[in-house]
């Protein structure tokens, strides 16, 4: 297992966009131990709950966010045989179609990378201190947490 070095930290909270291809390269470069690379990226969609969405604003709790995400990564590494992990989450004002989040995981075989990637996303959703404010035709609204997201995360402990 080769971890990303300090130059490429596992966690990045940033206002600027990221390049999906570059991130995949960083997961793969000098990493011949791992045959599987699973990535997830989340984007701003133009609709939610029947309303037209015009944009999103992302706020977070600096320091706590990084700590929480590091804990999620550590838990995933204990549970699955995975190699490199990268989480990018954007904050600030985002337009329709822009990337919000990236999770990349490598492993020797696909099962561990698929599972760990989904686990990281599920726990990021319910425990990392990020909040979305949506701009729709009706104005600005802070999004409410979804019960289905909580159930999804809880399902991992069954």
């Amino acid at each position, binding site marked *: 297992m080769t971890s990303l070095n300090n130059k490429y930290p596992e966690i990045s909270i940033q206002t600027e966009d990221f390049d999906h291809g570059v991130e995949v390269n960083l997961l793969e470069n000098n990493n011949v131990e791992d045959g599987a690379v699973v990535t997830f990226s989340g984007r701003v969609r133009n609709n939610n709950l029947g309303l037209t969405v015009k944009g999103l604003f992302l706020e977070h709790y600096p320091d706590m966010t990084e700590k929480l995400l590091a804990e999620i990564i550590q838990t995933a590494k204990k549970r699955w045989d995975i190699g490199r992990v990268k989480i990018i989450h954007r904050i600030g004002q985002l337009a329709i179609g822009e990337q919000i*989040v990236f999770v990349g995981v490598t492993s020797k075989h696909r099962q561990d990378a698929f599972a760990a990637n989904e686990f990281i996303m599920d726990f990021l*959703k319910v425990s990392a201190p990020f909040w979305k*404010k949506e701009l729709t035709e009706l104005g600005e609204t802070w*999004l409410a*947490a979804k019960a289905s997201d909580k159930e999804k995360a809880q399902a991992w402990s069954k």
Partner: protein
Amino acid sequence: MIKVIFFAALREQLGSAGTEINADSATTVAEVKVALGEKNNNWQHYLTNNSLLCAVNHQMVNSDFSVKAGDEVAFFPPVTGG
């Protein structure tokens, strides 16, 4: 002093990103909420919302968690990132 900070919808409802309370006025998270409500009557309603989450020094805690001088206590709504 205990540093108190608010995020997202709660910050907007309270009209404040944070404040400080005297460490003598609260020994638990629940007491911090009471002290904040006494400090500003308009805040009480929002701080008694059951869905509100709390972190002390970046760790999620329950309302009976102990607090002391120098702690950073954060209150915020359920998270919605990803």
